[in-house]
């Protein structure tokens, strides 16, 4: 297993935000994390990346226990991420942003530059490589974050709502990009609100509700699960779903 979470629990004071969630991902898998706002998926995500330390449970990366490691230590070990609200280096150029990622594997600025240009080509930002990152719009920033993460040459890429705030066309382009990245053999964890994204990308989905994992399976299984429908649409919709009217709601 490339990445494993074993009984990960995160509490803030008396509030349990993530309650004993386990996942395991092999090389090349795509895992989707979905759930309503406040369900705990971002918190769980941040426990995987090291931005938060789990209260209990373990995170195993490539056979090594990284539960107590910082984000930078996990990055060195092949884990990369994007942020829900883009965190680009605003005053640096697009190229320099990506070079920061590339510098993880080399001291040589010329090599970092070449690597960065390759990645920018992949995500389609090569034409704006000399623009200041602060001049990009939301879609550009999201792409830039993915490029930056890819430049670190990761084994697993975690995307935190990479499609939030995009128009329908932009979402389709972003899905294409994620597919392209997956085809290079990348393992992915995707947190997403947009069902369309999860259904078209993920092989395995975990549904969060109030800190618990309420369902797990393929996107098709999960969307038919009554507990999921209840969590998303309420009890009446779930009852309708049970009688077979779920088709147009999911």
């Amino acid at each position, binding site marked *: 297993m490339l990445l494993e979470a074993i009984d990960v629990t995160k509490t803030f004071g008396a509030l349990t935000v993530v309650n004993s969630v386990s996942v395991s991902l092999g090389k090349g898998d795509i895992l989707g994390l979905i759930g309503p706002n406040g369900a705990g998926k971002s918190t769980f995500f941040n426990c995987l*990346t090291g*931005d938060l330390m789990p209260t209990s449970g373990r995170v195993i990366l490539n056979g090594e226990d990284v539960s107590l490691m*910082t*984000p*930078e230590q996990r*990055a*060195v070990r092949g884990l*990369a*991420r994007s*942020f829900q609200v883009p*965190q*680009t*280096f*605003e*005053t*640096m150029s697009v190229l*320099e942003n990506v*070079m*920061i*990622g590339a*510098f*993880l594997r080399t*001291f040589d*600025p010329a090599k*970092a530059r070449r690597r960065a240009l390759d990645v920018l080509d992949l995500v*389609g*930002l090569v*034409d*704006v490589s*000399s*623009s200041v990152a602060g*001049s*990009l*719009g939301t*879609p*550009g*920033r999201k*792409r830039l974050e993915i490029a*930056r*993460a890819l*430049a*670190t040459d990761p084994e697993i890429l975690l995307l935190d709502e990479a499609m939030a705030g995009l128009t329908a066309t932009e979402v389709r382009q972003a899905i294409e990009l994620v597919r392209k990245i997956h085809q290079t053999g990348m393992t992915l964890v995707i947190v997403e609100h947009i069902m369309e994204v999860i259904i078209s990308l993920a092989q395995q989905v975990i549904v969060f509700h109030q800190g618990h994992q309420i369902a797990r399976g393929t996107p098709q299984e999960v969307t038919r699960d009554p507990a999921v429908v209840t969590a998303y649409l309420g009890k009446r919709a779930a009852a309708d779903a049970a009688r077979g009217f779920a088709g147009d709601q999911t």
Partner: protein
Amino acid sequence: MKRSVWLLLILALVVVYPLLFTTPFLQRLGALVLLYAIAASAWNIVGGYAGQVSVGHVVFFGCGAYASMAFFTHFGWPPIAAVPVGMMASVGIAALIGVPTLRLSGHYFSMATIAVAELARLIVTNVEALGAAVGLSGPVMPRSVFDLSFTSALPYYYLFLVVLLAVLGLTYWMENSRIGFYLRAIKDNERAARSLGVQAGRYKLYAYMMSAGLTSIAGTLYATMYGFIDPDSGLGILTSVKILIMAALGGAGLLFGPLVGAAILVPLEEISNNLLGGKGAGLTFVVYGAIIMIIARFYPSGLLKLVLDRLASAKPALSEQKVRDVA
């Protein structure tokens, strides 16, 4: 290509300046500009590039100054020979301050550095071996050329120029290597930098230590030129503020920003001191306060950045529309 022509031209002007302006006042003024440019350029490494605003840099300045005078007083060393001692002490102190305080964000780090600087001033004021409140003096008469005690400011001018070029060379190297990229990334967004494997704490500490060591050289040079150091001139908060303002006015995080700032502020201060005599000492604070407000309100990235942006916008750049289309 064009940029290097400009740089050579400016360098040539700086080299011939004291030969064109031969009055002692103007030569001394030139030497002081270079001296403060060294200190401000050193500050720039941690304050400008890494964005960790130290307001206690006078500690390192004082380290260098006091090391030279103390080793002369107690052991008869030529003042300049204490450069390595001052540097090592400064780097050590920077590590001691930096490890606990660089975790603090923004203003808290600045406040911690002020506290340490004031503490150092109070301690030195009470240590007899360091001259206490009276201070320490250098050689009255030069014993040899190594004492670097000259009546003319000319030798100091060229000595400072060489050191400044070395500091700027080091900064330029840093700017274009991995550590320079990492420091800018940390300054822009520490959380994002860490997610990309940047060991933010470690790099900030490196920058702080490097900056401290270089600032200490400026302190030693200051003491060598003046032949005297006391708690106010060597460890006073005003010197910290002066160094910081020069870098911020010229352009923090830009290679030549601190030099531009020093070239504006040092003459301003010297001329106002000359006009007002001893009575004007308090006025310096007022002027600095006003400058801080003006920088913060109108030129947060400094004057040099303003000029560079003007020059850049004169060239045909990638249009905003194209950026939006592609992104």
